[in-house]
């Protein structure tokens, strides 16, 4: 690689370790060594089913609250954080600086920069991973990554026909032109368009896409309901033993995720009618019980260098090791919409020299029970691993007792951009309890046929 770079870029990229010009402690970006990016802790709001407990709260309210809880937990009042990155999948155009505006509403030093990130449901993971890389390179000493979403605060927009008239009215210079434009209004123009979860290129909802994938991989209704049941029971047990005391700060009237059904049973889940893939008739398996509902909530994760954490007496839960983004061609049906993590993982494992079985915990985001089970089945499948991933042997099965052990999105809910922060902070806490060197894997699928996988190592 060095041969290809120009002399100028060679000066600013990795210089030889023994170079006399490199002082000890020099940031990697200036020629020093790459360092660890550590996860110090996290905070999130309880998640609420949309149009319910948080119906009156905005994205900014939720993200500010999640930040406030993080600041209080770690005593960050007046602190200049290197950078805050977060985002929302569904947000108003007026919220173009949502994260910066939220930061300004907290007691953080107003000189804390902030930027928006957006890669659908993997937004939180991208925010956290990008910040971790900057810390590893020495560009940042501290950072907060996260995300927020509120379907209850979704922007309602005029439809395209109405917008055309409105823009014409805006451009009109004379009264005559204005009257002409106004006369083009039709009653139909008043029908607003709310944002949906439809894929723009296929017109199919995410659930309809997943229903096809679930069916292709032959995932049974029973298996999906069992995964949903485990998610609820695990999450309830985690709350009961105080696991979330240091991870969640109440918001409004909620102290726990209100999608959580601690008393649900396989019988109750079994009675639900299919909600997606009804065209499959008797073979439709995806219900409201084994799919995540639309959810409101926000999450944040505090990252830093080891020195930064030590100077402030802050805990170090885990290292954020690496992450990889994947995308698949789902438009013509070649691959399932939510299967990108299956591909990304193969590259990540190869890069880190790890096998799928090397992990102590697996956090696979439960967009749908079918997504988790299809992904796991793909990794076990010889043909898929050979033909799609180009591997000699399948990645293999995982020990299911290590999967989503404190519950996941089916129970907690899934405020799109907030899920990455929820998972990262939860997993870091689990790995810290497990002990130094323990390994955790994160997999989050996203709209647009994308997804992010990441590796976290306990401290």
């Amino acid at each position: 690689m060095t041969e290809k770079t120009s002399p100028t870029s060679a000066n600013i990229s990795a210089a030889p370790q023994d170079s006399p010009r490199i002082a000890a402690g020099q940031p990697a970006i200036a020629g020093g060594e790459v360092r660890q990016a550590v996860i110090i802790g996290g905070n999130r709001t309880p998640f609420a089913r949309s149009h319910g407990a948080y119906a009156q709260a905005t994205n900014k309210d939720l993200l500010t609250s999640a930040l406030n809880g993080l600041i209080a937990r770690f005593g960050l009042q007046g602190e200049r954080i290197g950078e805050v990155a977060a985002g929302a999948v569904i947000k108003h155009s007026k919220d173009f600086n949502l994260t910066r505006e939220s930061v300004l509403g907290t007691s953080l030093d107003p000189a804390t920069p902030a930027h928006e990130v957006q890669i659908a449901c993997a937004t939180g993971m991208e925010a956290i991973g990008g910040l971790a890389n900057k810390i590893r390179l020495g560009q940042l000493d501290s950072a907060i990554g996260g995300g927020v979403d509120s379907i209850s605060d979704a922007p309602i927009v005029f439809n395209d026909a109405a917008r055309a008239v409105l823009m014409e009215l805006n451009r009109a210079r004379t009264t005559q032109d204005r009257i002409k434009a106004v006369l083009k209004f039709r009653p139909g123009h008043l029908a607003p368009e709310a944002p949906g979860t439809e894929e723009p290129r296929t017109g199919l909802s995410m659930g309809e896409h997943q229903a096809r994938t679930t069916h292709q991989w032959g995932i049974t209704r029973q298996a999906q309901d069992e995964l949903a049941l485990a998610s609820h029971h695990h999450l309830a047990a985690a709350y009961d033993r105080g696991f979330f005391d240091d991870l969640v700060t109440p918001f409004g009237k909620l102290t726990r995720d209100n999608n959580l059904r601690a008393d649900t049973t396989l019988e109750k889940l079994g009675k639900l009618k299919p909600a997606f893939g009804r065209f499959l008739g008797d073979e439709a398996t995806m219900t409201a019980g084994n799919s995540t509902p639309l959810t409101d909530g926000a999450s944040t994760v505090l990252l830093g260098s080891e020195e930064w954490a030590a100077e402030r007496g802050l805990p170090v839960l885990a290292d954020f090791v690496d992450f990889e983004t994947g995308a698949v061609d789902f438009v013509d049906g070649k691959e399932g919409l939510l299967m990108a993590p299956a591909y990304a993982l193969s590259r990540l494992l190869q890069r880190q020299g790890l096998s799928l079985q090397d992990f102590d915990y697996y956090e696979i985001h439960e967009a749908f029970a079918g997504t988790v089970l299809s992904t796991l089945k793909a990794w076990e499948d010889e043909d898929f691993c050979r033909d799609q991933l180009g591997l000699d042997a399948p990645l293999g099965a995982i020990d299911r007792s290590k999967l989503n052990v404190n519950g996941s999105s089916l129970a907690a809910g899934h405020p799109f951009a907030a899920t990455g922060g929820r998972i990262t902070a939860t997993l870091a806490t689990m790995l810290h309890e497990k002990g130094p060197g323990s390994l955790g894997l994160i997999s989050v699928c996203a709209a647009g046929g994308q997804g992010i996988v990441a590796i976290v190592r306990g401290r």
Partner: protein
Amino acid sequence: MAKAPQTDTYTALVNQPLGQKIAGALGLPRPAVLRRYEPGQTLVEGSVLVLGGGHAADEAAAVLLDWGLDVRRQSAPADRYGAVVACYDDAGTPADLSATTLQLGAVQRKMGPSARVVTIFRDPLGSDRPAVRAARRGVEGLTRSLAHEMRRGATANGIVLGEDTALSAPGATGALRFLLSAKSAFVSGQFIPVSSDAGALPRDWEKPLAGKVAVVTGAARGIGAAIAATLHRDGATIVGVDVPAAGEALAGVVNSLAGTALQLDITAADAGERILAHCAERHGRLDIVVHNAGITRDKKLANMDAARWDSVLAVNIESQLAMNRVFLAATGQGVVADELRIASLASTSGIAGNAGQTNYAASKAGVMGMVSATAELMSPTGTAGGGTINAVAPGFIETEMTARMPMATREVARRLNSLQQGGRPVDVAEAIAYLVSDAAGGTSGATLRVCGQGMMGA
């Protein structure tokens, strides 16, 4: 932070010209607006008259001069007094009380609003001679009665010196300053025992808790939030603790005080360890613990169920016993200060009892028992660490909780004390802040009432 009413409507009304006239004509109570502490405030407004012929009077005069006050040893016709310090430390028989007491009475009408009378005398139990003990108990009686007679927000309290404790001891000087100051606005008819030379006066009276790390339980709202704010004002770093369900309010309090929040149910088996670990990791030390968290589950005993009884006892007293065991066991290991200061919230309900509160009164009387026994453990001759432990027993305090009482009950309750009004959360907080300061190092095992000399259990 929770907003408590600044003053009740009635008090506001009778402090306006028309209201004053009407209340006067009808013989209704006329509660005064109490002078309360603000940083930078003059310690005493007006002169301070020091009465008595013993050592304490000389020592009092010296320390008051040191504080820049206008000190008088003799009353003069033109003087207006902000405080009178009446020293009875040399009283050997009740007849000895006469001179000082009559001089005190002669200047009572020359005292300004929110003035202070502080009596100084020795512990009655320190002498086994009947005449001496009678004289000392006599001072208690006259102080309490005088407190009832004080008007316009003025108070009367006493400092009870140990047999070998001089008023110049840090603890006695600290008690004198607290009782003279506006920090003791809602303390009247009370006695602060100072039985040792332990403790130290602060370098800066505006920041007596500088450099200290203080844990406050139940810090999310009400009195707990006021305690956290007051300790922070005095220089302490705050670790706010409250149940996870109160986390949002707790974050608000802590973020306004640049402290750290710990969401924790204090009845959890490992609560003490988790608090200690948090302090060790984040702040490297633990100097002050304020056991403020408490609950009420009121029912007459005939209707009391196990859930109500057990939860009140578990939260209000058992949790404190368990946490104290952990903190005291950790003294001398680098995190918990050698001079640990513990303050615990009792209640006048625990002193006088209150219908519907057998469980609450048991827990709060229990706090006073715990405090007196733990003080022995923490004493120089005790087995567990060093430092002090004291309790504060609030009377009627204007909080969100008392705001929910029925109007008539509330109106009666808040008038049933010498100051004829409810106290504010900050009044309790000031007493706590004083008791956890090194200037109160000579006081341990005591319960200080902050009740405006409430009639309940007086």
